[in-house]
């Protein structure tokens, strides 16, 4: 393979190729055309007279479109410039590829152009874990199109490939014997379609195939409209414009539609391997984006409500009222070798579903949706009390029932070592992590408002408020680590505190569960030397046994985490502290050219000068993309209050003047202005 991998996508269809546009996947190599978690092309190699091509340049025209400039000859010194090839590719339920061959000589040239084609139809899980296929393969040629097929019982996946120029087609690809006149051009357009045919041909599968040609949408115009509809940002600090533009574009790329809600979109979790609904990620990203677009939140709520758990299913860790963790569409899910149809093993998405419903209404005034989802919200609240209280102590706990393929840690810090005592020991199961109790508290308080104002059920509202107050009282007593003045990350099976110091304290501020008398001590820790790196708040404090500045959830800095921490600091009136967190993350975003990674190293800023990227395959990631948006909200102090939007800025002084124009909401459109006055550098540097 030569050079960097190139990725383009649309919805959950994406192509990963080398910088020539070629695909040569092995069973474990993640290149190919993927759709619905299945690889539909594992080989797509262009040759001219048996020779591979060389990339002169590769341009990402848009997230769904790439152009490759190629020349024959693979030598690094000698390049035959008598012929050049322009290969342009666009993704849409498969991909469309235009090939142009330009003859630069003053005599005609005869060429044999060949594209090798094949597919292994691997499930994404198989690509990750290198597992074997159980079905059989077949290829056939129909009316000049090549059809690659995989079949296992009633499970059928097909790739249809056709060309506008006549080709000689065999079961391994297409050959074009062409003659190009002096200074002339030859071209063809190829369509590669991912198909999930149903065994009954009268019914159509999830892909939209009309005849033999790919249905192409005007995606460039769609993207332009998306950006135009968003509020306009004006700012003295130039990098912020770049960051904002990058966030909007990446958020557009992360939009994902479900079969049940065609034409609407919700945020998928990340590109390219997580282009699917995740309860937690879709909710957090929708919350972050609410001041800028409410469409993502509405679709997220509807899609998660439709798939809310209704029964006890141990394989899927499903309970009545539970909001899903992750949906997948590949072969292993189809044959129940993986539980993702959908999988429910997640303890935070259910209370967060209620939180999002309330926050959505506060911004939009859309009481119709709140009434529509009343039963879903009530079922979610019942889940908190009846199904999530695994220890009968009034707290949400989690423990997987699917011990083979289920998730051990069902909170956002889901790696095996993320929940530990100061001394590094790991607690047993069930685990009651602290932020879950905060989310449950917030869900009850917010649901009480919805019950009183919209569902017209004041006695339910009273009951929820009483339960919330009781939860808050117990939580502040039982989770508070007295000798450290912060909240423990969890209670273990004996009710003992899992006493490490973590960023989860910031989520507790966001939820409102923290007693006012304890908030200052918590804020001091978040901005203190053990947690704050200068770029942001670390997941685990320096000094605890498992701290590692490049440990996934035990020392790295997560931009999304920090955005919610900033929101929490603002909630308790710590405006300047929130500005410092925003400052660190925004400056890191500048270093990353506007696109924040999922996480970066927790090294002290003074020691490394630059934030060190955590190696991860997924970028952009939805909640990292949403982080600067939420930080804009907290910096300007945007808060809906009835039909008005309150603006109460607290900005880093080096940002200068900041305007967000045409913020949408129940107030129609309003503008927000702020001027940087907080000296954040004394904390971040």
């Amino acid at each position: 393979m030569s050079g960097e991998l190139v990725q383009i996508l649309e919805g959950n269809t994406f192509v990963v190729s080398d910088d020539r546009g070629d695909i040569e996947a092995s069973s474990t190599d993640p290149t190919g055309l993927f759709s619905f978690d299945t690889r539909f092309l594992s080989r797509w190699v262009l040759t001219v007279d048996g020779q591979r091509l060389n990339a002169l340049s590769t341009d990402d025209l848009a997230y769904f479109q790439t152009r490759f400039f190629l020349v024959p000859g693979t030598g690094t010194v000698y390049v035959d410039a008598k012929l050049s090839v322009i290969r342009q590719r666009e993704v849409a339920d498969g991909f469309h590829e235009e090939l142009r061959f330009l003859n630069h000589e003053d005599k005609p040239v005869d060429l044999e152009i060949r594209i090798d084609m094949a597919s292994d139809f691997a499930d994404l899980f198989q690509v990750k874990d290198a597992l074997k296929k159980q079905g059989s393969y077949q290829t056939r040629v129909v009316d000049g199109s090549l059809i690659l097929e995989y079949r296992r019982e009633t499970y059928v996946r097909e790739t249809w490939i056709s060309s506008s120029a006549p080709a000689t087609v065999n079961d391994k690809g297409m050959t074009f014997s062409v003659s190009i006149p002096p200074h002339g051009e030859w071209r063809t357009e190829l369509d590669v379609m991912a198909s999930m045919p149903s065994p009954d041909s009268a019914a159509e599968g999830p892909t939209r195939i009309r005849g033999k040609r790919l249905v192409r949408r005007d995606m460039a115009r769609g993207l332009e409209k998306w950006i135009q509809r968003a509020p306009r940002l004006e700012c003295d600090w130039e990098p912020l414009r770049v960051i904002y533009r990058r966030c909007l574009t990446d958020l557009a790329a992360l939009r994902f539609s479900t079969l049940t809600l065609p034409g609407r979109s919700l945020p998928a979790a990340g590109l390219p391997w997580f282009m699917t609904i995740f309860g937690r990620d879709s909710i957090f990203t929708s919350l972050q984006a609410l001041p800028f677009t409410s469409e993502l939140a509405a679709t997220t709520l509807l899609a998660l409500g439709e798939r809310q758990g209704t029964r006890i299913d141990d394989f899927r860790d499903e309970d009545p009222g539970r909001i899903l963790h992750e949906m997948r569409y590949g072969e292993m899910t189809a044959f129940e070798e993986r539980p993702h149809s959908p999988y429910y093993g997640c303890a935070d998405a259910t209370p967060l579903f209620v939180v999002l419903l309330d926050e959505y209404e506060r911004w939009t005034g859309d009481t119709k949706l709140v009434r529509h989802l009343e039963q879903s919200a009530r079922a979610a609240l019942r889940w908190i009390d009846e199904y999530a209280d695994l220890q009968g102590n009034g707290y949400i706990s989690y423990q997987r029932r699917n011990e083979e393929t289920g998730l051990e840690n069902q909170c956002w810090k889901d790696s095996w070592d993320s929940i530990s005592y100061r001394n590094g020991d790991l607690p047993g199961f069930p685990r009651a992590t602290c932020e879950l109790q905060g989310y449950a508290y917030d869900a009850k308080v917010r649901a009480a408002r919805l019950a009183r104002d919209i569902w017209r059920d004041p006695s339910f509202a009273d009951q929820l408020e009483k339960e919330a107050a009781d939860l808050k009282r117990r939580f502040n007593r039982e989770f508070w680590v007295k000798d450290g003045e912060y909240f423990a990350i969890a209670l273990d099976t004996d009710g003992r505190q899992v006493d490490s110091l973590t960023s989860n304290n910031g989520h507790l501020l966001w939820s409102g569960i923290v007693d006012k008398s304890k908030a200052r001590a918590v804020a001091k820790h978040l901005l203190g030397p053990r947690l704050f790196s200068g770029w942001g708040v670390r997941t685990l404090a320096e000094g605890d046994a498992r701290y590692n500045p490049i440990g996934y959830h035990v020392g790295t800095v997560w931009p999304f985490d920090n955005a919610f921490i900033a929101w929490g600091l603002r909630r308790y009136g710590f405006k300047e502290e929130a500005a410092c967190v925003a400052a660190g993350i925004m400056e890191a975003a500048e270093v990353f050219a506007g696109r924040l990674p999922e996480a970066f190293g927790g090294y002290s800023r003074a020691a490394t000068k630059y934030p060190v990227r955590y190696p991860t395959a997924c970028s952009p990631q939805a909640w990292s993309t949403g982080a600067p948006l939420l930080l804009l909200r907290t910096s300007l102090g945007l808060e809906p209050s009835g039909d008005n939007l309150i603006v109460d800025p607290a900005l880093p002084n080096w940002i200068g003047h900041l305007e967000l124009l045409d913020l949408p909401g129940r107030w129609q459109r309003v503008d927000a202005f702020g001027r940087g006055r907080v000296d954040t550098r004394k904390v971040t540097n």
Partner: protein
Amino acid sequence: MPTVKAAKPTEDPISGFFDALAGRGHEPTFGEDSATLRFDVGDGTRIERWYLTVTGGDVSVTRQNIRADTIVRVQRSDFEAMVTGRLNVMAALLRGAIAYEGSAAPLMMFQRSLPSPPGSKGRVPPISGRAVMAQRTAT
């Protein structure tokens, strides 16, 4: 709309399922949804048709021809597995064991009324911290 409450052989899980659903009259997990589904249940020789109509969460079942928003085609053995909790609708759809025409949302609504898989208990014994540590040091 006439609902079916006619005597059926009790060993037929499909009519048993529909009878029970219609008997409940209102299905809370359907929320405020409204839709009609037609199920074409085939056994290789003949096709049996069932219609499920939901109006604001209220349920009625009939065998008489009416207009449907979604038509679901399924083999009898697979449908029996579904209504007894042994086959998940989404997994069945992905593997081509069922097919549908029309809107997907009513199918998603329908699957919410299906029972738990046999044997799912909802609780597992706790695991001690010592067991977690022992397992981590062993691997």
